[in-house]
């Protein structure tokens, strides 16, 4: 038994990362950030508005949250649509009750086919980012660069037309990318993306078309990750996000502004037995001294102004 000797080649065994997308740095070594009006903890509530096609291809994998049963998987199709019909309107009430300024990461296909929902979001004036075309349109190397560019262009341009907003943010379905995705996002006028969950603060990410800002949208405190993936109770999710808020708020006292990013799904927390848990978490977090509820774009803008 023996491995090819190339298994013992370590071509990137040197200072920094094993790729050239960004510089290695520890958060604690970076310049401290001050949020507007002396706020300490930015609250970024990110709401994915998603369309999971019934005729899912599942390439190169079945998107988490997507169809799992033989066609037609009506249970998952309709349960996800529940979020866009019912859950989202519960979310909106909760946001307004607690003064939360959300950011909506929208699948373009959903915006194309649901004008009433789109209008509900657009009329609020909240920031909308692009969440890809739909949840089964996964970005990966098998697409090929030209086809992926077409997919991104279609997704972004159509969402710009439909919303009237100059869409600047991006979240890939399943946070999955090809090697080219960041380059193509930048080429299509995207300024920030949230697929790389490797930091608690924004950082600049190199592409062949200029820099993107990587915005830190933690997977680990997502409702879907905690409640569905780990099967923790809703009460435990509340406890975890409140513990996270307390921790980051305290860290901000000595290390500069921090961000609590909550990625929450209307089809999950928008259920009747869960919505009160979201309300409970928002009540706690928005009462924290020094909280700044802001859109992803506004958080990025404040951060990037301080990087000069």
């Amino acid at each position, binding site marked *: 038994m023996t491995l090819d000797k190339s298994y013992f080649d*370590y071509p990137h065994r040197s200072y920094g990362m094993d790729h050239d997308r960004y510089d290695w740095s520890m958060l604690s070594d970076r310049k401290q950030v001050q949020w507007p009006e002396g706020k300490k903890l930015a609250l970024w509530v990110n709401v994915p508005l998603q369309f999971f096609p019934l005729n899912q291809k599942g390439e*190169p994998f079945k998107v988490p949250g997507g169809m799992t049963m033989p066609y037609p998987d009506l249970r998952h199709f309709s349960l996800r649509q529940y979020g866009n019909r019912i859950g989202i309107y519960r979310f909106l009430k909760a946001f307004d009750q607690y003064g939360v300024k959300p950011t909506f990461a929208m699948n373009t296909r959903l915006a194309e086919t649901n004008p009433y929902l789109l209008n509900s979001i657009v009329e609020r004036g909240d920031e909308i980012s692009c969440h890809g075309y739909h949840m089964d349109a996964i970005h990966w*190397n098998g697409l090929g660069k030209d086809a992926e560019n077409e997919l991104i262009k279609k997704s972004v341009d159509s969402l710009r037309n439909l919303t009237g907003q100059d869409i600047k943010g991006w979240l890939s379905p399943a946070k999955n*990318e090809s090697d080219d995705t960041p380059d193509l996002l930048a080429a299509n006028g995207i300024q920030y993306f949230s697929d*790389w*969950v490797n930091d608690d603060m924004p950082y600049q990410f190199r592409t062949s078309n200029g820099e993107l800002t990587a915005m830190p949208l933690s997977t680990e*405190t997502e409702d879907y990750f905690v409640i569905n993936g780990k099967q923790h109770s809703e009460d435990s999710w509340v406890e975890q*996000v409140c*513990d996270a808020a307390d921790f980051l708020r305290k860290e901000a006292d000595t290390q500069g502004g921090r961000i609590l990013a909550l990625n929450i799904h209307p089809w999950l927390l928008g259920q009747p037995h869960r919505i009160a848990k979201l309300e409970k978490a928002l009540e706690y977090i928005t009462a924290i001294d020094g909280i700044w509820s802001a859109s992803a774009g506004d958080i990025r803008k404040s951060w990037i102004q301080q990087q000069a």
Partner: protein
Amino acid sequence: MKEDPGYFDYWPYENRPKIEWPNGAKVAFWVAPNIEFYELNPPANPQRNPWPTPAPSLPGYTVRDWGNRVGHIRQMELLEKYGIRGSISLSTALCDHHPEIIELCKERNWEFFSHGIYNTRYTYGMSEDQERSMIRDSMETIYKHTGQKCAGYLAPALSHSDNTLDLFAEVGTELFGDEGGIYTCDLFHDDQPTPIHLRSKKRFVSIPYSLEMNDTIAYVVNKIEPRRYGQQIKENFDRLYAEGAESGTIMCIPTHNYQVSYPHRMKAFEEALDYITGHDDVWVTTGREIAEFFLDNYYDASVADISSKQRTA
């Protein structure tokens, strides 16, 4: 393939020679932070895929990068607050990639032991010479960057061969004599140190590195809530502390900077550390110190006792 690796003989948890830790401590308590580097595009291994999705497999890669960029400092400062020196299970390529982390740990007199070169390079399929070279590279790298003579081993990603423990002990002797290659964290059969049979007959011990207390096992495999993890740690300690009055026990918390250091998990971990270090009879120590103390004081008596318990009826 063997039915049993033959590393240890059966040794019942009763009537063992009494272990007395320094200063009358009941429990030797150590924390083993894994500080790891996972590659974005590792080479294929015939027996194990590094990542579950096609490259670039961002979810797994990026959380581990988070651990080094963000999580490490949080964990280090928390351990320091409670007077704990980490015993680092190190992907030794990290000495090249992230020397800042190595320096911070050196300044705090933490122990470094080998966890292979990258956690995306598995032992599976290696020839004996290849594995020996990999282990030697990792131990030499630790020495070059920290001046420490590597005492312990945890195979990269817990990937082993039938030769792993023998090779680690032999390379340790070649490089550093009796100071190198004296303990393993790869075996989970006991709550006290145990002598390990090696082909070289070297004096070598297994130091309990609890898989059950490991944050990745708790959070990823068992999927438990942060507060429950904290509670399990306290309860694990309570029993080992009580039993330690009869004969000294070992408690280890193996951690990862990309698990335990998340903002939603730090509170539970801090409460557990506060609880443990709030007890009087705890020896807060490192893997090497436990191994050396046992080898110096209890190894021979343990070998004799184990031998006496192998008699057939």
